[in-house]
């Protein structure tokens, strides 16, 4: 268990201000926040790269506040991987074992096992600069994991990757989290990563924690405008997925059934981007698979854009231009129809 107690430190450009939290053993914990919110600095404090001005860091009931990073048992993965450019993939991964003076044959077998696990065995003799982003990230993960850290800390580990590689690595991280039964602390500004990976999330703002809890909780009940702004523009609905007709997936939320082109069964979350939802006051013929009737619950005037919350059995957020909002003569309580395509429904 990791406990941060009133942790504070002031760098000139950033500061961490009175952060208190607990992370359970084996938990996947994500710090979410915009750039400049001090996320990286908090991670580096936990890893021991800085000393706090005040406050305590407790790991496994031991005060490690003044312990140097080499004695903390923390694995660290940076966004830009920070592989040692003068060492091969093998030697990068072996680094932590070499420091520990592990016997040569033992190092070889452990590194090979780790490379195997992460699917990078064929890269063994390559230098980091010849690797793709995803390969570098896997190498960095292997290097951190081989010392069997109590905690794996990752700073924006997926931000520099293309979308497909990112998806692959998200699956990889899930697998690693289960296999090693390791506590993971992960920092990102990407809400999607938090949805897919986190057990719990803390939203950070200017060095403080704005809100902490499970992802649904934060999404459904943002504590303040900052959190709402940061996570707020997506629709997320829990449901049970099963195979439907026309090779679609039907997601029963208990109130409505949403159709998606993505293949999933069992308990899922469905997300729909607000801009993918269209609205009309009369029922119109459409190719969209998802058509729901409901009424307008809330209207937010954002200037040129109007944000609406509609209740169609589930509450969904959508956006309209000011002009169409005026043309449709909308007001709270008005009966409406909403439409969105099955391809617009993301399941995870």
């Amino acid at each position: 268990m990791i406990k941060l107690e009133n942790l504070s430190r002031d760098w000139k450009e950033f500061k961490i201000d009175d952060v208190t939290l607990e992370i359970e053993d084996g938990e996947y914990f994500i710090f979410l926040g915009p750039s400049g919110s001090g996320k990286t600095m908090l991670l580096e404090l936990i890893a021991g790269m800085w000393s706090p001005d005040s406050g305590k860091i407790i790991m496994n009931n031991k005060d490690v506040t003044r312990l140097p990073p080499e004695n903390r048992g923390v694995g660290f993965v940076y966004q830009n991987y920070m592989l040692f450019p003068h060492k091969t993939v093998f030697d990068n991964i072996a680094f932590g074992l070499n420091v520990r003076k592990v016997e040569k044959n033992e190092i070889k077998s452990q590194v090979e096992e780790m490379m195997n696990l992460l699917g990078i065995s064929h890269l063994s003799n390559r230098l980091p600069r010849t690797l793709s982003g995803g390969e570098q990230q896997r190498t960095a993960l292997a290097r951190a994991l081989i010392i069997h850290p109590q905690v794996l800390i990752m700073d924006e580990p997926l931000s520099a990757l293309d979308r497909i590689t990112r998806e692959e690595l998200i699956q990889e991280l899930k697998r690693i989290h289960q296999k090693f039964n390791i506590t993971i602390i992960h920092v990102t500004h990407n809400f999607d990563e938090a949805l897919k990976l986190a057990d719990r999330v803390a939203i950070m703002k200017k060095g403080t924690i704005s809100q902490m809890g499970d992802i649904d909780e934060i999404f459904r009940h943002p504590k303040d405008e900052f959190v709402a702004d940061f996570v707020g523009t997506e629709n997320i609905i829990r449901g049970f997925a099963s195979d439907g007709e026309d090779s679609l997936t039907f997601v029963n939320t208990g109130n409505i059934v949403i159709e998606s082109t993505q293949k999933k069964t069992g308990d899922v979350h469905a997300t729909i981007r607000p801009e993918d939802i269209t609205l009309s006051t009369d029922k119109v013929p459409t190719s969209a698979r998802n058509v729901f009737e409901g009424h307008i619950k809330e209207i937010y005037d954002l200037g040129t854009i109007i944000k609406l919350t509609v209740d169609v059995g589930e509450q969904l957020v959508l956006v309209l231009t000011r002009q169409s909002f005026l043309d449709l003569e909308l007001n709270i309580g008005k009966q409406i129809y909403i439409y969105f395509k099955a391809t617009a429904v993301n399941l995870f």
Partner: protein
Amino acid sequence: MRRLDYTTIFFALMGSFLVLFILIPIVNLMVSSNIDSIVANLQDSQVITSLFISVYSALIATLIAVLFGVPLAYILARHDFFGKGFVESIIDIPIVIPHTVSGIALLLVFTSGGILGAPLGKLGIVFTNAIPGIIIAMLFVSSSFVVNSAREGFESVDPRMEKVARTLGSGTLRTFFVISLPLALRSIVVGSILCWARAISEFGAIIILAFYPLAASTLIYTRFVQFGLSASTPVAIILISICLALFLVVRLIIKGWRTYDKT
């Protein structure tokens, strides 16, 4: 073919002035003496001794500069502290003051009665008119090359790489030797060779502090004063060849050394 505009042509013409200004005297010098006199000088024991003194003393000065300059460079690259600008300025001072002035300043301190010369004299180390004098004259004027180049090298190593090494269990000193130093080594070697070449070329501070034993640059000067151009030119050619060879090595290292951070 790429068309050149008038501005580029004009600037190229202007710029070639300096290139020719440096190149012509050196090329002219290299061809102004016949091979026989160069060979004769290479068999002259006074010339060989003075060349040896220059190369050897410069090597010692460079090693001292590396030994003390690399840790300083690392501190300057990694830490901000009160008075950092002052320290940086001090390292650069020898570049901006006349070398004869450097020589006088050193002489005052390292003469047999000087504040450093007296205690070191008791240990048997004499500076005036001795090789240690040549070495400290060279060290004074050329150590900044090592410090500045090594510093650039360390600055190009991302501190986060060192941090990762530390989380993997490597202490600060080990991290320095296994990660930072190898990655900055190219800059350190380039700086050292520049320091060495600059030390071999030193004259002004040396003649004040240690006219004897004759270093190569001092020998050229005495030959010129005593016997004129024809006597000094062959020695000058030999010395300049050594310096140019060192310079060439630097360029080759810069080009050929495996760089890790660029693809």
